[in-house]
C-alpha cells in the first residue's frame, strides 16, 4: 500500500492539540476557491512543465518518463508549483505507511500526536488506518483533518484508531457550499453529527470569506445545528480568516475579514454555548 505524500511538517502548532507532526497527502476531491495550497489538489500527470522551469535543476525526467525530485538542490522558490498547469507538485514522495511513519516517529518524545491532512486525506482511509495503527503502538494521539465529503461512518475501523477529527464546514447552506467548493455538503453535515455522536469531533473549522458567501448566517445556522451535540462532548470551533497567501490568482481578490468581524462571529457561537472558539 502506498500514498502520495505532499509533505511532512515535523513540529506543527496549528494542526490540533499540542505539538504534532502533520502529514499532508496529495490529492483533493473538491475545489475550494480560497484553497491556500492548491498544489496539493491533484496528482502529478508527469507533464514535465516544471522540469524545464526549475532554476536550480532540482527536477529531472527519468528514463521511465517519471519526474525525479532532488531535494538537496531545491531552494524552495516554489517555481514548480506556480507553473504547474495541473494544481499539483513534483516535490511529493510515494510512501508506504511504514515509510511515512518513520518520518513521524523521529519526533517522539517531542510530539504528542500525529495529524493527517491534505489535499483530502479521507480519499485514502486505508492508508490512514495503517498509519494510525503504527502511531498507536507508540501511544501517539491521532487526528484527521478533513473536508467532510467522505462518509466517516463507512470506516469504523479507522475511527477506532482515530482520536479526533477536525472537520471543515465550509458553508452551512448547500448552495453556498457548492459555490465555495463545487460540491454539496449533505455528507459533511451528516459527518458532523456522526462524529459528534461518536465523540470523535475535536474541532469544526470555517474559513471566513464574507465576499464569497453569507458568513454570518452560515455561522449562525451552524451554531444552531451543532449546539445540541456539545452535551455529548465539548468540541471547539476554529474561525479562520481568509488570507490571499498561496491562493490561486483568480481567487486572490477576496477581502480579508476584520478582527472585529471575526469576534462578532465568535460572539454568536458563544451565545449558543460554545466555549472554545479560536480565531486565526
Amino acid at each position, binding site marked *: 500500500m502506498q500514498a502520495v505524500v505532499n509533505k511532512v511538517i*515535523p513540529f506543527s502548532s*496549528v494542526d490540533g492539540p499540542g*505539538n504534532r507532526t502533520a502529514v499532508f497527502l496529495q490529492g483533493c476531491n473538491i475545489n475550494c476557491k480560497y484553497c491556500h495550497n492548491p498544489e496539493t489538489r491533484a496528482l502529478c500527470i508527469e507533464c514535465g512543465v516544471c522540469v524545464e522551469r526549475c532554476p536550480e535543476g532540482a527536477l529531472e525526467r527519468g528514463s521511465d518518463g517519471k519526474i525525479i525530485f532532488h531535494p538537496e538542490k531545491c531552494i524552495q522558490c516554489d517555481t514548480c508549483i506556480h507553473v504547474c498547469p495541473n494544481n499539483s507538485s513534483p516535490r511529493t514522495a510515494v510512501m508506504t505507511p511504514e515509510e511515512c511513519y518513520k518520518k513521524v516517529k523521529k519526533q517522539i518524545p*517531542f510530539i*504528542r500526536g500525529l495529524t493527517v491532512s491534505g489535499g483530502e486525506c479521507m480519499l485514502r482511509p486505508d492508508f490512514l488506518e495503517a498509519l494510525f495503527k503504527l502511531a498507536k503502538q507508540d501511544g501517539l494521539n491521532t487526528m484527521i483533518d478533513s473536508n467532510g465529503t467522505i462518509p466517516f461512518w463507512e470506516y469504523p475501523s479507522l475511527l477506532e484508531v482515530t482520536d479526533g477529527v477536525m472537520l471543515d464546514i465550509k458553508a452551512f447552506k448547500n448552495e453556498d457550499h457548492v459555490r465555495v467548493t463545487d460540491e454539496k455538503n449533505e455528507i459533511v453535515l451528516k459527518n458532523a453529527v456522526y462524529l459528534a455522536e461518536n465523540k470523535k469531533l475535536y474541532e469544526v473549522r470555517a474559513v471566513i470569506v464574507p465576499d464569497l458567501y453569507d458568513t454570518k448566517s452560515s455561522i449562525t445556522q451552524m451554531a444552531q445545528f451543532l449546539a445540541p451535540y456539545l452535551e455529548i462532548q465539548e468540541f471547539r470551533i476554529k474561525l479562520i480568516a481568509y488570507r490571499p497567501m498561496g491562493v490561486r490568482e483568480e481567487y486572490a481578490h477576496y477581502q480579508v475579514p476584520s478582527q472585529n468581524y471575526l469576534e462578532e462571529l465568535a460572539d454568536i457561537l458563544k451565545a449558543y454555548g460554545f466555549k472554545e472558539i*479560536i480565531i486565526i
Partner: protein
Amino acid sequence: MREISMERVNKTREAILETIKSPTLTHEQKVCAASGLADSLLEVLDLPEGLDELLNVPIDRKCICDLNEGHAPMRPRYIIPDYEKFMREGSEFLQLAPPTDLYEAINNLLIFYKHVPSITNFPVYLGQLDELLEPFIDTVPEEQAKKLIKMFLIHVDRTVLDSFSHADIGPKATKAGYMLLEAEKELEQAVPNLSMKYEEGLTEDEFALAAVDCALHSAKPSFANHKMFKKELTEDYVIASCYNGLRVGGGSYTLSRLILGNIAKRAENIQDFKENQLPYVMDIMARYMDERIRFEVEESGFFENNFLAKEGFIHREKFTAMFGLVGLADCVNILLEKEGKSGRFGADVHANDLGVEIMDIIDEFNKNHKNPYCEITDNHFLLHAQVGISDDIDVTPGTRIPIGEEPEELIDHLLVLSRFHKYFPSGTGDIFPIDVTVHKNPEFVLDIVKGSFVKDLRYLSFYSSDSDVVRVTGYLAKKSEIEKLLAGSAVLQDTTMLAKDAFKNAHIPDRKVR
C-alpha cells in the same frame, strides 16, 4: 604586592576619568566601572606561567577569559544566600525579625537584596520566590496579595539594576507562583531573570502552561530540568544568574572560560588540539582558578567577616567554581577546516561527533583536577557553557549552534543539543524565539519542553518573536531600552548596555524563529 609600571597607572587613571565623564553611564554604573579599574592595578595573585599570553591578548587570540573578575577577588563571583533561613530567623546584622505577614516578608527581602555582593554588585540570586512568599500569601486579602507581589517585582526591576539577577519558582504550583507569573506577564520587565523548575509528573500542567503563557509575553520564565539538576546537585540547588545550577547557601567562587575557537587556531590538526593545545590551556586555566579561589578563601577575609557567612546564610564549604567554555562550534569548524574536511557543527553528524569527543576530553580533565575548597562538588569544578559577553566577536556561546546556522527543523536542532546539555551541571541553555501563532497553543511549547527533558536537555528559554523583552544570551533586555541607549540616553539597567553590543556582535535579532 608586585610593582607595576607608571605607564599602566596613568593609562588606568585616564580610563577612570573617562568613566567619570561618561554621558551614558548612570551614577551607579560609573562607581562600579571605576572601582573595577582601580582594582585592575592590584597584583596580588600568584599567576601560573604562560597565562599572560593566553589571557591578556585581543579577542581573536584570547584562549582564557576571566570575565573581568578583577585582580584581587574580594568576594565570590556568585553568592546564593539561604533565603529560607532568613525568612525563618531574620537577621541580626540587618536588625530584622522574621516576617509575620506578606508586607514584612516582601520588605525584608527587598532589604536583604541590597546587601548581597556579587561580581555585578547586584544579587545574582533572589530566592525561590514562590516558596518564600507562599506561607504569607493568606495573611492579606487576595487582591492585596496580588498588588503587593506586583509592587515587589517593580521594585526589584527598578533597583536591582542587572538582569543577571535570577529568581526561581516551581516545581509545584502554589498561589504565590501563579501570582508571580500573572504579574510578570503583565509587567514585561527584564529583571528578575526567572526559571521554572519543571518535572513532568511533578509539575502540574496548568502551572507549566501559565509559565509558557508568561514566557510568550515577557520572555520568562525559562524551564529548568528539575529531575536532572536534583540528581546532580540534590534538591538544594538553585538556578542563578543566566542559568547557573548552584547550591543553596553556597555559590561559585569564580568563573573563567576557555575560548575553544582560539585554542583550535593554535593547533596544527585535530590530534594536536586534543593531545597538546587543549590540555595545555585547560591546565593553566584550572591553576589560575585555583589561585583566585585560594585568595578569596585564605586572604580576602570575606568568609570570616561578611554577615552572610557570620550568620550562616552562606557557608564556605558549599561553594564551588565554574569551569566555563565558549565556542565549541567555532572550534569544531576550525579544526575540520584545518584537516581539509567538510562539515559544520550543528549540521553534520561527524562535526557533532567531534564536538562530543572534545567535550569528553574537557569533562575528563575536570574530573581529574582537584581543588581543596570545592568540597561540595567532590573537590571538582562544575562545567559551565558560558553564554558569551558583549565584546565577543565571532565567539559562539557555550555549545550552541551559531545563529544563522540553526537546522531548518527544530527537531534536528534539539537532537543536536541533546548530546551536549548533560555536561554542564552549573549551566547551559538554548533559546528559541517562537512564532506568535503559538499564543493560541501554549501546549505546543510544553510538549517540546517535556520531550526535551526526556532527551537530556537541561534548560530551555522561549520568547515570542514580537516581544519587547527578549533573551539576549542568558539575560533579558528590553528592545525599547536598547533603542533609548542607542539614541544616546542613559538607561537604568547595566545589562541593557551589554545587550546593545550583543545585538550587534552576536546577531541576536537573526535567531531562527520557531
